[in-house]
C-alpha cells in the first residue's frame, strides 16, 4: 500500500466513527428541530421552522405571533455567564499557572496533578458539594452567623452567583493547564531581558508574559467557554431551575416539557453559537500566525 493509499484508508476507521457518533446524531437533531411536536410527546417528521420561531415569538390563543424575550434572556444569560466564567478563570489561572511553572521540577508534577485532581471525582458530587457550602444553613451561612456578622441573609443558592461559582470551579483546570503549558514554554531569558531593560514586574507581566502566553489563554478560553455554554448540572443543581441556562432549557424540553423539536432547535442554536465562537477564534489565531 502506498503512502497515498494509506493516508486515505488509514483514516477510514476514524471516518466511520466520526460519521456514526458525530455526523449522524447531529443530522438527527437538525431533522428533529425541523419536525413538529407529536401529540403524545416525541415528534412527527416534517419540515417546519416553527420551533426556531418559538425561540423569539410566542403564539397567543388566536394564533398571532408576538415577540417574547424569555428565551432570548436565557440565551443572553448563558452567553454572559459563560463569558464571565471564562474571564474569571483566566484571571485566576494566570498567577496559578505562573507559580506552577516556576516551581522546582519535582513540585511541578505534583502541582499539575493537584490541578487535575477534581476530575477524579464525579462532576455531580463536586457540584453537589457546593449546595452544602452555599445552601441554607450551609457552611458559609453558618460561619457568618457564628461570627455574628449576619443575623438574617438571603440564600446564596439558586442565584446567578451560585451558578457562576460552580462553573468557575468546574472548568478552571481546563484554563490552568494550557496557560501553564504556554508559560512553561516561555524562555526565562525573555523575562530577564525585560527586567534588564528597565521593565518592572508589572511591565514584564503586561508586555512580555501576557502576550506570549496569549495562545495558551485562548486555548483555555475555548475549553472553558464552550462547555459553559452547554452546562446542565450547574444550572440545575445551583440555579435550582429558577434561573435557566441553555443547557437545562434543552434538557427540560426533552424531559418534562416534552417538546423535542423545540429542544432540538435550541440545541442547534447553541451549536451554531459555539461554531461562530470557534471560527472567530481560529481566524484570530491565523491572523496572529501571519504576523509572526
Amino acid at each position: 500500500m502506498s503512502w497515498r493509499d494509506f493516508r486515505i484508508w488509514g483514516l477510514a476507521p476514524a471516518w466511520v466513527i466520526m460519521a456514526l457518533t458525530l455526523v449522524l446524531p447531529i443530522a438527527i437533531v437538525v431533522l428533529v428541530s425541523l419536525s413538529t411536536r407529536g401529540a403524545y410527546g416525541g415528534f412527527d417528521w416534517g419540515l417546519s421552522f416553527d420551533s426556531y420561531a418559538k425561540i423569539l415569538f410566542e403564539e397567543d390563543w388566536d394564533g398571532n405571533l408576538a415577540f417574547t424575550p424569555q428565551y432570548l434572556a436565557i440565551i443572553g444569560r448563558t452567553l454572559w455567564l459563560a463569558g464571565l466564567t471564562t474571564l474569571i478563570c483566566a484571571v485566576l489561572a494566570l498567577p496559578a499557572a505562573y507559580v506552577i511553572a516556576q516551581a522546582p521540577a519535582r513540585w511541578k508534577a505534583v502541582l499539575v496533578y493537584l490541578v487535575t485532581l477534581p476530575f477524579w471525582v464525579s462532576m455531580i458530587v463536586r457540584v453537589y458539594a457546593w449546595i452544602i457550602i452555599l445552601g441554607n444553613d450551609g457552611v458559609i451561612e453558618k460561619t457568618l452567623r457564628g461570627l455574628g456578622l449576619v443575623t438574617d441573609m438571603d440564600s446564596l443558592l439558586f442565584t446567578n452567583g451560585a451558578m457562576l461559582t460552580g462553573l468557575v470551579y468546574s472548568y478552571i483546570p481546563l484554563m490552568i493547564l494550557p496557560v501553564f503549558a504556554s508559560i512553561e514554554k516561555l524562555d526565562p531569558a525573555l523575562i530577564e531581558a525585560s527586567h534588564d531593560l528597565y521593565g518592572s514586574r508589572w511591565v514584564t507581566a503586561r508586555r512580555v508574559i501576557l502576550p506570549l502566553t496569549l495562545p495558551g489563554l485562548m486555548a483555555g478560553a475555548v475549553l472553558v467557554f464552550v462547555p459553559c455554554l452547554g452546562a446542565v448540572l450547574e444550572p440545575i443543581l445551583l440555579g435550582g431551575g429558577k434561573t435557566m441556562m441553555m443547557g437545562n432549557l434543552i434538557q427540560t424540553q426533552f424531559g418534562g416539557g416534552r417538546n423535542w423539536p423545540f429542544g432540538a432547535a435550541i440545541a442547534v442554536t447553541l451549536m451554531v453559537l459555539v461554531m461562530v465562537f470557534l471560527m472567530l477564534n481560529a481566524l484570530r489565531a491565523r491572523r496572529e500566525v501571519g504576523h509572526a
Partner: protein
Amino acid sequence: MERKKAIEVQNVAKSFGTFQALKGVSFDIYDNEFFTMLGPSGCGKTTLLRMIAGFESPTSGTIRLHGRDILDQPPHKRRVNTVFQSYALFPHMTLEANIAFALENLGWEKARIRDRVAQMLDLVHMTQFARRRPAQLSGGQRQRIALARALASEPEVLLLDEPLSALDLKLRQAMRDELRALQRATGITFIFVTHDQEEALDMSDRICVLGAGEVQQIGAPNEIYEDPENRFVADFIGETNFLPAEVVSVEGDRATVTTPLGPVTTWHKGAVAGAPAMLSLRPEKIGMEDQAQGHALHGTITGRNYMGGYTHYTVTVNGIELRVSKRNAVSHGASLAVGAPVRLAFRPDSARVLAR
C-alpha cells in the same frame, strides 16, 4: 592620570550548596574599557556577570557601579544592560519595538525614542528591517539587534554573555571586529564573557582569567599570553609544552633551571631555588631547521598535523615529546617526514619558568 572605575568587584563569593562557584574575587573595571572575563565552563564568569546585571546576588562581598553599591538594586533599576547568549529578543515585537522597549520603560518622550531607535538601527546597519520580527532574521542580524537594544539607553556598562557562541565561524570573526568598533564608537564599558581564548585575545583591552572560582590573572592580552602568572593561565591560553624543571638559582625576575633540554635561564613566576618547577615553552617559539635560532636541540619527528598555514609537528628530544609549529613560509616547501631527524632551537627568553 587616575582612570575612573566603572565596576568594582570586592571579595565577591558565591556558593551553591556546598559548591563554591566564586571564592572571594576582587578586581576593578575602568570606564571605556573592553574587559573580558575568560575561563573554562564552571569557572564562575557567567555568575559574576549575572551578579552585575542583578539576576543573582553574591553570598558575600560587594559590587559597585561608579562608586555606588548596586547589590540592593533590582535589575530594572540598574543602568546596566545585557546582550544575552540566546539574544532573548522579544518574539512578539518588531525590531523597532524591541529597541524602544528600554526607552519606553525609562519614560522617554515619543519623538526622542523614535530618533534614538532610528539611530541605533543605523548604527548596526539594520534600518531596512525595522518592521520585521526576530523570527525573520538570521543569527548575525539578531545579534546586531540585541546589541542595538542593549546599547539604546546608553547604559553605564554593557554586559555580553558569550554573544558570539551561536554564530558560525566566518560570522564570528566579522562580529569580533564589529563589536570592537561598536565599543570604540559608543565609548561604553563592555564586559564580555567567553570561554574562547582567541576571542578574548583579539578584542579585549584587558582580560581577567578565571579558574576554579578565583582570579588567576588580569592583564592585557599579550601579558596574559606571554607572561602567564601560573600553570593554569599558561595552559588555558594558547598551547604550550610543559617541561619538568629543577630550579638551580633565582636572581630577581630571572631563574636558572635544569630541564631535559639542558640548563635554561629566563624570566620566572614563583620559582624557589632548589624546588621543582615547570618550564613553559610555546610551540611557535621553537624554530625548526631554517627557522631554528638560539638554544639548539636535535630530535626526531614522531607526528605531523598539516593545518594549511602551519604544520604542527611532534618531535621527540631527549625522551621528551615537544609540540612544535612551523610556519609554511614557502608553498609546497620541503615537508619533514615522520621519523626524520630534525634540528630545533629556541630563545631561552621566550620560555617561562612557572611554579609547579
